[in-house]
């Protein structure tokens, strides 16, 4: 498949997935919380296009896009959202702790910033074992104010570890605008504190993201150390499902919605004659079928047995 179509398809898949998850959540089918990544699909797809299956990935509470793009099996993923025994984490993790070691997804995290030092650690592992893997840690603009960010990246810088620190600046930390939680203009500037390259990229442009990620991955695999990438993007919905988003600046929002990464690539592909309504409909159908299939699988899966509650605490 054409690379661009491929990107498009993956972004669409994430968008459709998130929309389905929202509707399930609203129907009360999914326990816990849900943090939608709608609007940020280009970052997930662009970054993961530069990765191999063996590479490691850390994500956040807003991680569905990342793990789908990394290749996580959708059935096990949806089952986890349903807290079923067939879930990737056997129902013990949920959206906020989703993990799939088989495709290098080393976990979402409920503690903002906490994946960053862990990512330095897996990259250290790779460096010591010379296994050629790189690690990507996704996190948000809000996370870039945590001590974990500073300590974790500094350590990777000092040790020259193969890590990509991928900051999705989606303009919000919960209800707080990025303008009010930091004074620095560009988060990529923070790379200067560590003596590593800091790259700023349009996070609504999947190809730009893919290129920046690919360059950083090459650097990492060559032993040249970590890179901090800031992808400029926007959280189209609330912080979590149920957030009333009263704090949102509607002009800002409207401006960003115009930059919808999926709409952008659609236009692009249409102009290039690579996409038409027919193909689009087919893609959506195919994607929705996969999603429905995954939901069916989850719904029909067994709950965990109560006896399992005390399993997996110790080896």
């Amino acid at each position: 498949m054409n690379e661009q179509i491929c990107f498009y398809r993956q972004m669409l898949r994430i968008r459709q997935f998130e929309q389905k998850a929202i509707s399930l959540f609203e129907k009360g089918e999914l326990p816990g919380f849900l943090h939608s990544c709608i609007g940020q699909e280009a970052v997930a797809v662009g970054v993961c296009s530069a990765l191999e299956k063996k590479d490691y990935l850390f994500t956040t509470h807003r991680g569905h896009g990342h793990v789908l793009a990394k290749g996580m099996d959708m059935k096990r993923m949806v089952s986890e959202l349903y807290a079923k025994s067939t879930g990737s984490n056997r129902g013990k993790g949920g959206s906020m702790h989703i993990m799939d070691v088989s495709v290098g997804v080393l976990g979402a995290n409920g503690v903002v910033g906490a994946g960053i030092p862990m990512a330095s650690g897996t990259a250290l592992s790779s460096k010591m074992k010379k296994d050629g893997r790189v690690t990507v840690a996704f996190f948000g603009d809000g996370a870039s104010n945590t001590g974990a960010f500073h300590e974790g990246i500094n350590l990777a810088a000092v040790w020259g570890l193969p890590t990509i620190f991928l900051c999705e600046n989606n303009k919000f930390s919960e209800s707080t605008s990025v303008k009010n939680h930091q004074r620095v203009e560009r988060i990529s500037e923070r790379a200067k504190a560590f003596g590593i390259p800091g790259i700023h990229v349009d996070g609504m442009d999947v190809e730009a993201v893919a290129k920046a990620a690919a360059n950083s991955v090459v650097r990492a695999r060559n032993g040249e150390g970590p890179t901090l990438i800031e992808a400029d993007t926007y959280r189209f919905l609330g912080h979590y499902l149920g957030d009333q988003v009263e704090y949102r600046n509607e002009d800002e929002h409207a401006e960003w919605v115009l930059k919808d990464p999926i709409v952008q690539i659609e236009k692009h592909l249409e102009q290039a004659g690579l996409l038409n309504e027919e193909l689009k409909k087919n893609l959506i159908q195919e994607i929705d079928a996969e999603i429905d299939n995954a939901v069916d699988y989850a719904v029909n899966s067994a709950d965990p047995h109560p006896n399992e509650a005390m399993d997996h605490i110790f080896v």
Partner: protein
Amino acid sequence: MRTIRYRDALREAIREEMTRDTSVFIMGEDIEDPFGGSYKVTKGLSTEFGKERVRNTPISELAIAGAALGAAITGMRPIAEIMYLDFTTLSIDQIVNQAAKIRYMSGGQVQVPLVIRTQEGSGNSSGAQHGQCLEAWYAHIPGLKVVMPATPADAKGLLKASIREDNPVVFIENKMLYNIKGEVSDKDEVLGIGKANIIREGQDVTIVSYSRMVHESIKAADSLLEEGISAEIIDLRTIAPLDIDTILRSVAKTHRLVIAHEAVVNGGIGGEVAARVIKEGFDELDAPIERVGSKASPLPFSPLLEKEIVCDFNDIVTAVQSIIPNAKEVTI
């Protein structure tokens, strides 16, 4: 008297203390309007008092606690909100190594009118990092007071007391209590930190509890009453300092003790209470002391598994039954 929610009682306490004393202010993540805090306790406050005194912070738990401490030792009375007790792990150097000790280390040169407000508790599938009950950690630290209200009235009266306190207080709410309703006085009622409350008198067994488990204790006592067991319920309200006298007096009457908390049994406050009672009330005890708490596991996401791990009134009933061999007639 009005009937209001726990969350509103907390807000009233903050509001009244901010009105009363301009050195009181609050800082934390996403507490400003229109969001008004993750659990909406601060809703309306930044609109009323301005963003100078109701301050959103970056995600920087260590700096939140540290900056609040700095403000506290220089004449302000900060309330630092840490969104989840789980995240106080990130502030804990400032709370434990600094705030709890700075008065002592300085030979009494400063006082520390600092409130760390946070919340804990399971029951809504928040998973392993959004519901831990770690109050025993703070109660182990000399220099800290640890307050854990179970009712709207206590929430208000104890938060007011904590704000007026010149020592650092870790004030721990429970997320499942925010919506419970209860009667709250219209007056400026400030409760005493360190005083337990006998919320129901009884003859056969003493149930010591605090925070959310008080409500489970009440359910348990109701159910026990049906089989003729009369339980006295003590709500500790403050776990440090511990009101051991109230407990001992009750045990001297009932001769049986069950301690119930949502925290994991092992290493929880229950052990401390048991050890104190053993030492100071040894001859009063007619049966082993039972501890009720959650199983020694991280909290699972699955609601079904979560129920397996977290204790409830049934566990209290079972514990009481295990130390009262034969159900008796109702004695009160």
